């Protein structure tokens, strides 16, 4: 498998009045062709910032301070804007969380789809329009020609997210970054969206980073899972390994927190404490204050450890399988 994207040592910091927020603080991962990587974390863990960093969409007061983002072998971290523009929406597309907010409310669907093509290719408008129509058909939108003339608010939430997916695939990208694309949707609609995304990645061989806070979603979708906590990937590995045999206490805790049929009526395993304040991270391992296994060693940031196919940042890997 060839790597489409290699991120190494990525650090994206925000320089605010109150201090430096190290939203992403040394992240490494690789996504291969046709692979779906689940990037899992709670709010503020830096998972979305990681996604935006790849596309160079970090706004003031943030910037990538360190690290490399190699896309098809070329480092695009801090690449010139023109270069990034050519890649965005063309080679790497993005799907956002809330389709209500991301589609421009006053522009018709066809405008918003065609411009995505025309921004990268000098094709006749008619061709752009036909490709847009076909793309809508591909994501299962009935009577696409009619939908093309509609405004976003005339479509349901599910429809809008289908449009987003269609736009993401319009230019046959090598990589799609999906940032919580189903969080705002109902269960049955979520299933439809995941279905379409899954189908298209399989058909086109496009790699995908699926950013979510919901482990259950990626459990069924992703090939690999990376778990983020406070700006770092704390555990990374094949989906089965991470879900069934978590090593990091945080992963263990997360999995234990999920209510299932197996622990009905019992108290859930709970991670104590709060998600950390990114302005005042504890020294060393950020999870240590909430960790049952923390020790004095945790005052020093744990290095990345490679265990078989997995990567881990912890001095105290968990032996037993939690909660499950």
């Amino acid at each position: 498998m060839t790597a489409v994207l290699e991120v190494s040592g990525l650090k994206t910091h925000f320089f605010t009045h109150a201090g430096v927020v190290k939203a992403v603080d040394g992240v490494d991962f690789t996504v291969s062709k046709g692979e779906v990587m689940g990037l899992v974390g709670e709010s503020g863990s830096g998972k979305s910032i990681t996604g935006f960093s790849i596309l160079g969409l970090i706004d003031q007061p943030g910037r990538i301070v360190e690290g490399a983002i190699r896309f098809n072998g070329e480092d695009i971290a801090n690449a010139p804007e023109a270069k990034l523009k050519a890649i965005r929406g063309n080679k790497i597309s993005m799907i956002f969380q809330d389709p209500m907010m991301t589609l421009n409310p006053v522009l018709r669907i066809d405008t918003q789809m065609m411009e995505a093509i025309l921004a990268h290719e000098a094709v006749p408008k008619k061709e752009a329009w036909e490709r847009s129509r076909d793309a809508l058909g591909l994501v299962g939108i009935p009577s696409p020609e009619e939908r093309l003339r509609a405004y976003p608010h005339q479509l349901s939430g599910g429809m809008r997210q289908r449009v987003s997916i269609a736009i993401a695939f319009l230019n046959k990208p090598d990589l799609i970054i999906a940032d919580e694309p189903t969080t705002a949707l109902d269960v049955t609609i979520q299933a439809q969206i995941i279905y379409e995304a899954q189908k298209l990645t399989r058909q086109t061989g496009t790699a995908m980073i699926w950013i979510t806070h919901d482990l259950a979603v990626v459990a069924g979708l992703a090939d690999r899972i990376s778990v983020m906590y406070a700006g770092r990937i704390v555990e990374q590995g094949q989906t089965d390994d991470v879900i069934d045999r978590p090593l990091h206490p945080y992963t263990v805790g997360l999995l234990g927190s999920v209510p299932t049929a197996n622990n009905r009526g019992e108290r859930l395993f709970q991670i104590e404490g709060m998600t950390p304040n990114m302005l005042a991270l504890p020294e060393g391992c950020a999870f240590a204050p909430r960790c049952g296994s923390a020790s004095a060693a945790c005052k020093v940031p744990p290095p990345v450890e490679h265990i078989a196919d997995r990567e881990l940042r912890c001095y105290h890997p968990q032996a037993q399988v939690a909660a499950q």
Partner: protein
Amino acid sequence: MTVFVIRRLMQAFLVVFLMSVIVFFGVNIVGDPVYMLVSPDADQADIEAAIRRLGLDRPIWEQYFLFLKGAAQGNLGDSFVFGEPALKLILHHMPATLELAFSALFLAIVIGIPLGLFSGLYPDNPVSKGIMAGSILGFSLPTFWVGLMLILLFAVELGWLPSTGRGDTASVFGIQTSLATWDGIRHIFLPALNLSLLKISLAIRLTRAGVREAMSQDYVKYARAKGISTGRIIFVHVMKNIMIPVVTVMGLEFGSLIGFSVVTETIFAWPGMGKLLIDAILQLDRPVVVAYLMIMVLFFVLINLVVDILYSILDPRVRLQDQGA
């Protein structure tokens, strides 16, 4: 849409009726117009004759009833001062005010929006700060004061533009307008600028706030993620969204331009309705004041209607409410 228009028309009718009561009785509290009109040489008999001639000897409710009766037939009474139908006088002065207000609106848009756009896109740029400071000045300086300064600078000192008056007019679609002649445009420029200063500031601030808000919206980030050029993002994605509040507010402000034209018309001796009104107020020409306000009410109802329809055209999300609140 139908219901919307029907509702508006009903409201308009009610509003016009209410206003006629308020205005008619309100205007009648003020002063005694007879003493404004009769020549100082007139004796008591002359004064009483004048009172009778103007119909002021009747009880106020009877005057109002006569007014309503006339109004129903399109007659809003005759001016005390000019002896001509008040409606005719106002319609005669209306084109001058409208062209002034339209020109001011035009200036506000062509000056205000680009400046607002710039300062919204680059809020930290010194030029933007200058623009914002200027817009505060525009809000804070009294119109009449600025008006005279404009005359002093451009007419007296530099001699570039005429100081006062309306200049040549030409007929366009049967309406006499200064905008059709070069001399007319030279004459209208200063008063229009004076009248628009406040609105330029408003347009700057509205646009700036709109741009700043729009730029932080997800759809802008999404458009960037699609690889769309910055120009297209600003002029298509952002502008289309900003134009909605800007057009709406500026449309509604058109009414206040007409209202404020009183000051500008006084300074620039512009023969419009505003000057007619202030003269009518100062001379207690009641029929003109009442007729002016009646026409204004209708006018404002019309502006509101147009703005609402415009709004629904600009913003695809808005459907004119066919249901009650």
